[in-house]
């Protein structure tokens, strides 16, 4: 019991989120009769306060104190969790603000959506911290169930429902496969604790049998990060879901999926080999598995994105491609890879959410998600076009923008690890990606609009949102040093146990 009480002090962000969840549910109950606007504002305010509180506390907790297991070694409060917590909080805050400006969510009661958002934020943190097979599965399912509900939130909208059904069926199958893999892993090692798993695997060689188990488990994690071939749900769900939810899914669960991936493979399936490097245990070559996943994911994402005409689908495939890039860093088998992924995600958050913010704002006037409807946007709103340009160039990884930094980290790590061929494939993919990002920009700037073009009216909120998202992208290179500071704490990953 004292362990639980002690753990609570390191559990502050999650506690704040759960408190906000309770307040939102109760407040939603008591504002049912009030006009939609005032009750929505109140609920948004409560959720925002909760998320900001979680952000502040998780920022303070970052790098403070020794790495330490929590709740009878269910969670590890170490650098990895420390780095990911603010990423999740920031994502949710931006998504909440996007939700306030989304046309799709206008006129809909948002109580449940905010409750789901708060829950899923906390669940992402649990995912990132879990060092026990039970926790990995449970937190992953909590994120999944909340996401299914968020995707299907517009229950009278056909697309939203279909997306949600596809999502839950694919999700249940892949997490079912993962569960079966976890159960076999539990049988092989006789323990549910990730450190215990590593110790047991280090003693005996399991070979190809273990590899099959890892493929099953990778299905569950791959589903969360939308890695090919577990990505089938992704384009449909991204298209059908309300756009703020799409924005959330493209960052939050993906980041948490990578946290679990790192924890599971770097902590449970490998042992420290000195100098920040790790060596696989148990005789299963999972590095090869991850490399194959990375190559397939990148290539498939980028090639499919070329063919898209719907901007939400395009961003869906682009997010698959980015997942592939990050998977490349996961093949590095040293702390460098972890740093690269953490840095990539921190930057990806701003550039991808930025692109979605532009999509949501544009949808307010065009009412469409087709790329063609962006024709002549330059004349309608130069500001939005410039913003979109910055986000897209950043996603491409063009030098002055932060995306370049992200790519730099990944490629540096990959090349240092002697995986030159992987880096070459990555660069080729980045070149392909430039095509479809530029295509969007070309439509916005060069193509002539047809029909009337109402001008965009920005609210103060919109401007603030754009500034918050643009600044980190533009000034990305200034973060060079500070990102090092952020990512160096992720080195504590391997210290525990």
């Amino acid at each position, binding site marked *: *019991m004292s362990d*639980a009480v002690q753990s609570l002090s390191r559990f502050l962000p999650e506690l704040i989120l*759960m408190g906000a*969840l309770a307040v939102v*549910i109760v407040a939603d109950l008591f504002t049912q009769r009030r006009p*939609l606007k005032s009750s929505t504002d109140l609920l948004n305010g409560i959720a925002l306060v909760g998320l900001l509180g979680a952000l502040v506390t998780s920022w303070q907790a970052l790098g403070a104190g020794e790495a330490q297991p*929590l*709740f*009878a070694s*269910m*969670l590890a409060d170490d650098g990895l969790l420390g780095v990911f917590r603010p990423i999740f909080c920031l994502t949710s805050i931006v998504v909440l603000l996007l939700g306030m400006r989304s046309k799709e969510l206008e*006129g*809909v*009661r948002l109580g*449940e959506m905010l*409750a*789901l958002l708060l*829950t899923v934020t*906390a*669940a992402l943190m*649990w995912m990132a911290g879990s060092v*026990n097979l*039970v*926790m990995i599965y*449970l*937190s992953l*399912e*909590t994120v999944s*169930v*909340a996401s*299914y*509900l968020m995707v*299907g*939130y*517009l*229950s*009278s*909208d056909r697309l939203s429902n279909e997306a949600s059904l596809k999502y839950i069926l694919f999700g249940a199958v892949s997490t079912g496969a993962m569960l079966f893999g976890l159960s*076999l892993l539990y*049988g*092989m090692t*006789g323990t549910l604790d990730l450190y215990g798993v590593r110790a047991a695997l280090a003693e*005996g060689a*399991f070979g190809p*049998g273990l590899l*099959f*188990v890892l493929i099953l488990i990778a299905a569950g994690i791959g589903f969360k990060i939308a890695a090919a071939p577990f990505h089938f749900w992704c384009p449909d769900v991204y298209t059908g879901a309300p756009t703020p939810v799409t924005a959330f899914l493209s960052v939050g669960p993906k980041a948490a999926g990578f946290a679990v991936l790192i924890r599971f493979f770097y902590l449970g399936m490998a042992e420290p080999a000195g100098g920040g490097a790790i060596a696989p245990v148990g005789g299963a070559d999972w590095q090869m598995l991850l490399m194959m996943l990375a190559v397939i994911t990148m290539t498939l994402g980028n090639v499919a994105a070329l063919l898209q005409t719907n901007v939400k689908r395009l961003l869906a495939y682009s997010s698959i491609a980015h997942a592939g890039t990050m998977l490349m860093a996961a093949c590095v088998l040293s702390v460098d890879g972890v740093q690269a992924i953490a840095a990539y995600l921190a930057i990806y958050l701003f550039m991808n959410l930025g692109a979605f913010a532009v999509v949501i704002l544009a949808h307010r006037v065009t009412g469409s998600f087709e790329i063609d409807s962006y024709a002549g946007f330059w004349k309608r709103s130069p500001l939005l076009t410039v913003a979109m340009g910055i986000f897209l160039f950043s996603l491409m990884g063009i030098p002055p923008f932060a995306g370049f930094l992200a790519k730099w980290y990944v490629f540096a790590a990959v090349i240092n690890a002697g995986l030159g061929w992987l880096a070459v494939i990555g660069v080729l993919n980045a070149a392909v990606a430039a095509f479809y990002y530029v295509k969007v920009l070309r439509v916005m700037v060069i193509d002539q609009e047809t029909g009337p073009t109402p001008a965009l009216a920005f609210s103060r909120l919109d401007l603030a949102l754009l500034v918050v998202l643009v600044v980190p992208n533009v000034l990305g290179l200034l973060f060079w040093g500070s990102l090092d500071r952020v990512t160096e704490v992720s080195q504590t990953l391997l210290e525990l146990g």
Partner: protein
Amino acid sequence: MESMASAAIFYGVAALVLGSALYVVVGRNLVHSAFALVAAFFGVAVFYVYLGADFLAGAQVLIYVGGILTLLLFGVMLTNRIYNLNLRSGAIQVVPGALSAGLVFALLVWIIQSVDWGAMDAGDPGPTSESIGRLLVGDYLLPFEIASVLLLIALMGAAMLVRRRGSRS
């Protein structure tokens, strides 16, 4: 003598479970499939009893048979026209499906045979409900609490989805 009888019952139940599971996935009548699932769930509960997991067996019957199956049946019955008894559920890609399922099975059998599980029989653990209860508020306190959060949002979300929503135009 007694052990032979118990083994016979075990393999009988195993046959029942696999048979009804097979019916679930190949049967052409959805409602029959759902009821075949009852037998499968029950058989799994019997396995738990054989493994000395008495509490889990009770929970299996209570939640799967009493909860999930009733839900599934409601789902089947409400999402089809009420008089239509021929709830046909056609199959697609039977041959590739069977091939890949067979492949998975072969792989699993191979794994089961090749891995040294280090199996030792810890014996019948005796009544487990108290130990499970202590674990749930001890070592597994956090998963227990997370499960309650999950139940809360699932309840809330499911109700939200099914409720008729008038406000959206």
